[in-house]
């Protein structure tokens, strides 16, 4: 892969790491990247092996798959097993364990479960199969919610009645608050979620410095974006500043995407509360379909059990999501809980902190010590 891309230039990486080293000095600082996309970039490019010991990255709750509680997965499987239903889902959700099986198992047992890349694909399947009910398992933060909203508007406009959405969209600010409220938390700053911010802008994060005294830098998704955002956090700390800054200026506007926000408001309303894997119930942290879209709401059209399932006792996903422990500090990490047999959702998605660490990070400190000749 020959990336001439300016955001992946190894020389720029070395220069930026030198800056980070000088700015951090002999402190030990912990920054949380909120977004699962950042976690993925960090592991994919081996960023942690480049960082000095003085800067540690904590992988936050921004993986949309990782925060879905087991009860909701069970509800999804129940929907998938309704006679005549085609159940559509992003690939990431397929292996997420419910209380005793996942969507892949349901598919193997005869449920018609199909992987899609976008809710519009699900709508197309509905149009092509007018005699079947097509349900879309909607997950994700404000990043993916607008595409679900657009799909619902299209479904309504085209009068496609055999399509519905099982809505599990969540919002980023409430869990961020929950993490900041956690008494056992020690963080020195945040890398703000770039994709979510393209929709909601930077203003919603102002409470982070104002109320909790932590700097936040909205970061892009190329490896150099991450390093530059760390530099910006370190400069704030050096200068005694504490504010919201935007590294991802090429995509994120302070006010966000007004059109997307308007569509979100048109289709969704805030749920009074929603359960998050490992974080428990967080009030006003998720979206549901507005009354006007009741006909396309799978939760109203079909009966879903809605049974709350407690997280497995051995699983410490909650502590991992809050950054209280590292993935490898979890009692079951790597033995009972592996990517093949995940107990917690953090192990399922490639963006989950545990799976990312298991797949990409286990040997980083050792690997970094291995002398490697230039290729």
């Amino acid at each position, binding site marked *: *892969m*020959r990336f001439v891309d300016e955001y992946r230039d190894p020389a720029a990486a070395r220069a930026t790491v030198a800056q980070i080293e000088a700015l951090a000095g002999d402190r030990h600082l*912990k920054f949380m990247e909120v977004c699962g996309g950042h976690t993925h970039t960090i*592991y994919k490019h081996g960023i942690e*092996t480049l960082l000095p010991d003085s800067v540690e990255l904590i992988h936050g709750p921004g993986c949309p798959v990782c925060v879905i509680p087991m009860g909701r997965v069970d509800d999804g499987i129940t929907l998938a097993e309704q006679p005549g239903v085609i159940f559509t889902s992003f690939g990431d959700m397929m292996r997420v364990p419910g209380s005793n099986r996942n969507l892949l198992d349901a598919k193997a047992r005869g449920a018609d479960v199909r992987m899609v*890349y976008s809710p519009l694909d699900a709508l197309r399947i509905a149009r092509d199969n007018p005699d079947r009910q097509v349900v879309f398992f909607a997950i994700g933060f404000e990043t*993916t919610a607008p595409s679900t909203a657009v799909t619902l508007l299209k479904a309504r406009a085209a009068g496609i009645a055999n399509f519905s959405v099982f809505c599990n969209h969540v919002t980023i600010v409430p869990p961020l608050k929950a993490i900041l409220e956690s008494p056992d938390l020690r963080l020195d700053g945040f890398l703000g979620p770039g994709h979510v911010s393209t929709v909601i802008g930077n203003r919603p994060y102002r409470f982070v410095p104002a109320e909790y005294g932590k700097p936040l830098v909205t970061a892009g998704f190329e490896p150099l974006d991450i390093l530059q955002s760390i530099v910006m956090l370190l400069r704030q700390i050096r200068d005694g500043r504490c504010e919201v800054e935007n590294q991802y200026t090429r995509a994120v506007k302070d006010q966000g995407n007004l059109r997307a926000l308007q569509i979100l408001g048109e289709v969704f309303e805030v749920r009074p509360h929603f359960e998050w894997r490992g974080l428990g119930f967080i009030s006003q942290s998720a979206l549901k379909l507005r009354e006007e879209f009741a006909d396309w709401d799978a939760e109203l059209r079909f009966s879903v059990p809605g049974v709350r399932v407690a997280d497995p006792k051995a699983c410490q996903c909650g502590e991992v999501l809050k950054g209280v422990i590292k993935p490898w500090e979890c009692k079951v990490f*790597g033995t009972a809980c592996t990517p093949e047999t995940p107990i917690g959702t953090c192990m399922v998605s490639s963006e989950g902190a545990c799976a990312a660490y*298991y797949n990409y990070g286990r040997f980083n400190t050792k690997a970094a010590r*291995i002398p490697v000749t230039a290729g």
Partner: protein
Amino acid sequence: MSQGGDEGGDGHRPSREDIVRDRIEAFRRRRPRLLDDTVNLAHGAGGKASAALVENVFLEAFRNETLEPLGDAALLALASGERLAFSTDSFVVKPRHFPGGSVGHLAVHGTVNDVAMLGARPAWLTAAFVIEEGFAIAELREIAADMAEAAAGAGVAIVSGDTKVVDKGAADGLYITTAGIGVIPAGVALDARSVRAGDKVLVSGRLGDHGVAVMLARGELGITGDVASDTAPLGGLVADLLAAAPATRWLRDPTRGGVATVCNELARAAEVHIVLHEADLPVAKAVNGACEILGIDPLYVANEGKLVAVVPADQEEAALAALRAHPLGADAAVIGEVHAEPPGVVIIRTGFGGTRIVDMLVGDPLPRIC
């Protein structure tokens, strides 16, 4: 990962992390367990679940010395002293026709390439067809013509076959199974166990063309790209390579699971550590772009006309020159090297300058959503 825990700076933590890592490694080395009650698609994707199924069901039932290495082809030693490479493969690709080839080409190339990876010259093939009732004879003719064309190109004859027709709905159109035999020339002995620290890892061309071409041809992704399958017979390329670099240690065609998977299989079989260099991986721009959009890694994407070779360092140049001199190896590159420690592990130096582990895939390469 620098340090863990809440209170930074205490010296014993990294060693605790190392202990956890060692425990995980020990756990990983155990035989893959098969916990499922039913077969799902992950069992056919070539990753860990496939290994668990094959080892726990098939190896358990058929166990013998020839099968045990679980290579793509078996090595048969005859009483006369001659050695044969013998392999079989089934082809269920969807769609059956894609840019660069069809299931007919694959059915020939897939099997002759498995035979060629033992250094053999593929000679004979058998072909068995499972056909769904209602299948168009015209398309069957087309696919048979593709097979004939591929066999002629590979220098093999299709010498025996079988045909079964099943009820409408009992199969998805057409499945083809081929088996192939080739003779291994005297003096050729390719074996993972001969791989040593210091050896070089080469690939014969650009990665991921086949997998991406098929994914795009399915038309479900809403993206198009100018990517054609690389399906091709590798017997000639192998012969040229072995003539130029007779000490070549090991060959493998990185089909399902891609280069990442075959490197992991080698690291485990040879108990060596493999270091790849991302900046040296030959990947076409369109393939890279599609992979970025789909959230998959070209290292894990299937190839049907490429080989991975391990050669001793002193034959690296000769091997590379021989590959590049062949039309199928024009984009050949040295992509990594073999180290001793830690055994069984593949890592990659990223283009950005970091390192990461390249592990076996767990299931299908599931796309990421954001």
